[in-house]
């Protein structure tokens, strides 16, 4: 059965950003503008269609998007072990459904901030794998032009306001972006990804408190994978139900199975609508699983091997959707081949990319 899983329903233009150093940013307005500081297009008809009927085609798209992230991350692990990738990396294996479900629900013009585990969100929102891989290789063609790396992936054109290496670091700016949308009367939502570990840090509390107080269109997505690096939930959280942390600020909350991409998509859609309708911010708790270590190369000495094995077998979001859709082995393998081609091409693209000049380090310090 041909669906959107196999190529045809999947178009990604191969963009390079070699000429885009200096980036694009809508110049701040002076005086009353025509409304909206950043130009964006709303394809309203297509959006309504997508939201009302979650067709099999659409779900196959989700499956393919998740598979892209999975294969990309596996390739990243492989290339890191081969010694080709500088720095350190955190891959999102196991958490693909949250990335895809949420990012697919975003409207054009919505913005989001991500975490140190950002590859999934970045790809799910539409940044080309070439641009992400090139960034990991430190090339000018990378989405941050080599300045950011894995934990500072930005793609402002797609509303990606940056991955963040500081736990909870991106949340206050999301409250601020939502405030800007409200002050300007724009129908846009600002969304933050963060983990269960981040619900302990000050910025989480201050950002939710302020967002709720000022009733701004923000969505706070907690990817609860039950680990803060090597520290399990029971060692860092004195409560079990993390929605209580948002209820404490008077915020509306939604809880969803983060391994069910359709459920995530629907829940995210509800959260975004709630915020967009001016009803205030939402805390979306997505219970998920990290099927790998905290960082690439993490031996996970702190994790029970039996638990890990069982989790891998029973909590893979890709397997779950595959089963739900009844995708045949042939179809899946075909899609896998295509996705792997994309990922291999991304590595080639990155390896053939342009190294920044050393003195480029002194550019972009100031606008």
């Amino acid at each position: 059965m041909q669906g959107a899983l196999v190529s045809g329903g999947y178009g990604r233009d191969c963009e390079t950003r070699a000429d885009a150093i200096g980036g694009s940013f809508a110049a701040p307005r002076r005086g009353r503008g025509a409304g909206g500081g950043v130009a964006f297009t709303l394809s309203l008809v297509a959006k309504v269609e997508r939201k009302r009927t979650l067709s099999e085609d659409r779900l196959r798209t989700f499956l393919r998007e998740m598979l892209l992230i999975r294969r990309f991350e596996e390739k990243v692990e492989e290339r890191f072990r081969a010694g080709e990738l500088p720095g350190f990396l955190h891959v999102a294996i196991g958490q693909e459904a949250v990335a895809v479900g949420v990012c697919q629900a975003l409207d054009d013009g919505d913005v989001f901030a991500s975490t140190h585990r950002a590859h999934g969100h970045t790809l799910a929102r539409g940044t080309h794998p070439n641009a992400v891989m090139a960034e990991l290789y430190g090339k000018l063609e990378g989405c941050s032009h080599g300045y950011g790396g894995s934990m500072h992936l930005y793609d402002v054109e797609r509303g990606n306001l940056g991955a963040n290496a500081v736990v909870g670091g991106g949340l206050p700016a999301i409250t601020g972006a939502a405030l800007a949308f409200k002050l300007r009367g724009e129908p846009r939502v600002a969304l933050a990804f963060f983990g269960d570990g981040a619900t302990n840090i000050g910025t989480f509390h201050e950002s939710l408190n302020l967002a709720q107080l000022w009733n701004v269109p923000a969505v706070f997505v907690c990817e609860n994978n039950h680990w803060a690096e090597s520290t399990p939930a029971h060692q860092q959280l004195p409560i079990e139900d993390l929605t209580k942390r948002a209820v404490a600020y008077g915020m509306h909350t939604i809880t969803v199975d983060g391994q069910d991409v359709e459920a995530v998509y629907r829940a995210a859609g509800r959260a975004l609508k709630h915020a967009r309708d001016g009803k205030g911010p939402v805390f979306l708790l997505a219970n998920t699983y990290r099927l790998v270590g905290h960082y690439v190369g993490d031996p996970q000495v702190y994790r029970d091997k039996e638990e890990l094995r069982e989790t891998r077998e029973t909590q893979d979001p890709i397997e779950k959707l595959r089963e739900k859709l009844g995708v045949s082995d042939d179809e899946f393998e075909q899609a896998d081949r295509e996705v792997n081609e994309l990922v291999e091409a991304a590595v080639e693209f990155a390896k053939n990319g342009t190294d920044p000049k050393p003195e480029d380090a002194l550019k972009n310090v100031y606008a």
Partner: protein
Amino acid sequence: MPELSYREAVRDALSQAMREDEDVFIMGEDIAEMGGSMGVTAGMLDEFGPDRVRNTPISEMAIVGAGIGAAMQGMRPVVEVMYEDFTTLAMEQIVNQAAKHRSMSGGQVKVPLTIRTQGGAGWSPGAQHAQQVEAWFVHVPGLKVVFASTPTDVRGLLWSAIYDDNPVMFFEHRTLYGIKEDVPDELEPIPIGQARVHREGEDVTVVATGRLVHEALTAAGEAESEGVSVEVLDPRTLQPLDEKSLVASVKKTNRCVVAHEAVRRMGFGAEVAAVVQEKAFDWLDAPVERVGAKFAPLPFAPVMEEYVVPHAGDVLEAIRRTVGRAA
């Protein structure tokens, strides 16, 4: 030419910007009905309303971070941190986020945020309400740091800070809020990164910031009666520093004293001294003297506070030391 106090000058720059530009808004603790703990924003709530003059909860990280977020969306928020001691509570957002977004994104993002704050000793506020911390921020690539010492300067520089596309730490000095002077009818923006010579002289350059500009001018008057001609230079912007003006002045006078209210050790004066000796070593007839607070948390008792904090007398002694040294 109207006469404005330093406080009124700040208010004037903010108000004019807000009248002209919907994208400018202010937020901070107690800035609305109360008009700010220093009275700077008095009356602004009435003129601009609560959407644009926003009282915040006590949440420096969220206040500054929200400013960052709104700035990234193209607005020009001016955030107030009530005392510069409290910038510590927002350091992560200022240093790791605001300062670095532009670079980390490879130039995709701008953060046109202004953070106004104030400090100043002399009224026994105690150790946590009187620090001068500007040096910390000069040390962070990606931030600009401004510290004006007169009503004209603060008005013109605040305007420039608001319209600078980078995060600007804008320091005001508590004891200067009441000083008055005639200011130009029209607000004249002053470029960021431009020093000002308050007083020309031949024998020694005193580089001073904030309250110490006025202390230096007092000391210069005294020194003149002792036959010493003192040039007083206020960098006004600490980052980027107007090294050209600074070095030109020292090459002229051959001696340099740098004075600030902040703790002397690792203060901004240390950077000035380093720059001066790098760029004008062969012109110097004496080592660079530094005047700053003594190395102790600021004590409460007035006699102890007076001892720790620098005054005109300390600047004068430094002038005498540098001039007294044989060439």
